[in-house]
Each structure stands twice: as C-alpha cells, then as structure tokens.
C-alpha cells in the first residue's frame, strides 16, 4: 500500500485572503517578524498499489477533482 500527499496551493499572483487575514491576526496577537502567510491544502490518500502508480493516480485526481488549474497548482509526493 502507498500513501501519497497531495498539496494544493494557489498559483503565484492569485490573491490569498485566507493567508493574508491569518497574517494580520498573527501580527495583532503580538507575533513578531511575520512575513507572507500562505494557505495550503493537503490531502493524504492511501492507495492499494505501488508507489509510482499511486503518484500517477494522485495526479489524475488533481486533474479530475482536486485542483482548478486556473488558480491552483499541485504536487503529489509519496510518503
């Protein structure tokens, strides 16, 4: 069995209000030196197959459902 990690993030240049609001909140809570904050989504998927096959399946999952290519990019890695 393979476990893959699918990381979905916003493409460069796409506004990330969730990230920037979190940054503001962290700063207002007194955290110092906070730079950019990015909101990223991670799916962990268990697959009953070999690692290479699982990564390929993960990429297909991104194409069919998990990522909108207009605003999001994805990376699939085996764990």
């Amino acid at each position, binding site marked *: 069995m393979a476990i893959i990690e699918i990381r979905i993030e916003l493409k460069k240049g796409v*506004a*990330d209000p*969730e990230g920037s609001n979190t940054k503001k909140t962290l700063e207002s809570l007194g955290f110092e030196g906070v730079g950019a904050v990015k909101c990223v989504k991670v799916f962990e998927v268990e697959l009953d197959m070999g690692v290479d096959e699982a990564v390929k399946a993960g990429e297909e999952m991104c194409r069919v*459902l998990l990522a*909108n*290519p207009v*605003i999001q990019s994805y990376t699939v890695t085996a764990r």
Partner: protein
Amino acid sequence: MKAEDVKVCVIRIEGTNCEDEMYQAFRMVGASPELVHLKQLAGKAPDHAKRNLEDYDILAFPGGFSAGDYVRAGAIFAARIKSDIGPQLRKFVESEKPVLGVCNGFQTLVELGLLPAFEGVMSETPTAALSTNDSGRFECRPTYLRNDNRGNCIFTSEIKKGKISMFPLAHAEGKLLSADPRFLEKLEENDQVVFRYVGPGGAKAVYPWNPNGSPSDIAGICNPAGNVLGMMPHPERVMTRYTHQDWTSCKGPEEGDGMAVFRSVMKKLTK
C-alpha cells in the same frame, strides 16, 4: 409550447440547498419544475424514479452549497455530473436548451467547463474559477445589478439593457478569475457579460457593492450561444416585492426583481 409543458430539471445531489426556492421560482412563471437527484439521471435509482435529462426543457443548478463544498465550491457536484451524465449534459447544452446556475450553481457551471466556454460548449478542465472573496469572508447582503447584456442571453431578454435590479447574494467564493489575459475583452466581444455589480443609483461598484472583488464588477456571465447563464446573486429569492429589503418603505410593483429572469426564458420557450 404552453408554459405548463415546459419541464424544468432542478438538479440536486447530497447537501444541495436552495433547490426549493428555484423550484418555486419556476412554478411562479407557470412552468413544471421537478427536483431531480443526479442519481435519477444516472440510472442509479429504482425504475419508477429514473429520469432522462433530454426529456427536460430547462436545467437549473441551485445554490447554496453542495456536498459540503469540500475541495472547492461546486467542484464535487461538477466532477460527479461529468462522470455520471457528461455526454448527456454536453448534448443538452449543444442543443441550446437553457441552463441556469445560481451561486453554487454558477460555481458548478464554471467547474464543469460550461462557462465561459470560449471554445466549444464544454471544456475538459475549468477555464475560469470563482475564487475566495477579497474580503476573505462570507458576504451576505442585497446587491444592485445592471443588465449589461446586448441581447445574447436567453435569461435577460425581458430585462431592458442598463436596467438596475436588486438581487440578494450570499457567498464566500465569487471572484471570477481566468488565466486568459484577454478574458474580459472576450466576454465583451461575445456579449457574454450579463450582470455587473453597481452601487446605489448605478454608481461604480466599490466594496461592499462589489462584494467579492470580481474584475470589471462582473456578477453573471453567459456562454457564447447565450443559453447558459451563471450568476452569483439570487434572482429566485426576490420573486415578490415582499422579499425585497425595502418593501415596507417603497411603493413598488407586486412583482420582485428576480421574476424577470424566469419570465425571460419562459417567453423564449413559449412563444
């Protein structure tokens, strides 16, 4: 065709809401709507409950939410439709039957690749996205919308160009984005812009009148053929004057602003 012969498929899956308002809106203009679960269209239902998409004259995507809006708003609804009835849906749109998507329905139409559909009626992957509101939060309020369509859209034929209507909205992801650098120009060229957010009296919309930061204040677009309309605000919630926010203080007509959207499509089908 008589109004009562116009069959409307109000499509739903697990976790769909606002389908009742959509159903009632079509009832109020005399059509015969039916709430239809995707499984009924996909043959995954008892025989008496099975339905064919091609038997309907209008397809309506309600919203709301669907499937918890997990992954992305409308993404699960769209992926399930594509997998279960993709070819039937493509045929439905190709035959230029009207398709309406409101709020989550608009998000679903974009995820399905039915909007903006610059090339072909349905793209393999989405070519636009309804992204998180600039405010980073759920926006819920009345909005003013100007009809900017020049006559292409089947759902606004009864609304004068430039007329300002009030529809309420409620969403967290309504900012229309595309990777196409000529996105806005193409929408204009093809007469695909239908509704724009405006401020009171028709002024340029700034937040909160443009609630999500959509470029060019776009609230609703249609496909190049004009038979598919997706919009974030809810016309089905203002079918009578009594659900307008100012109904106690204004002497308006009995009819709500949303009625015109449904009357427009019915007029086309029943003439």
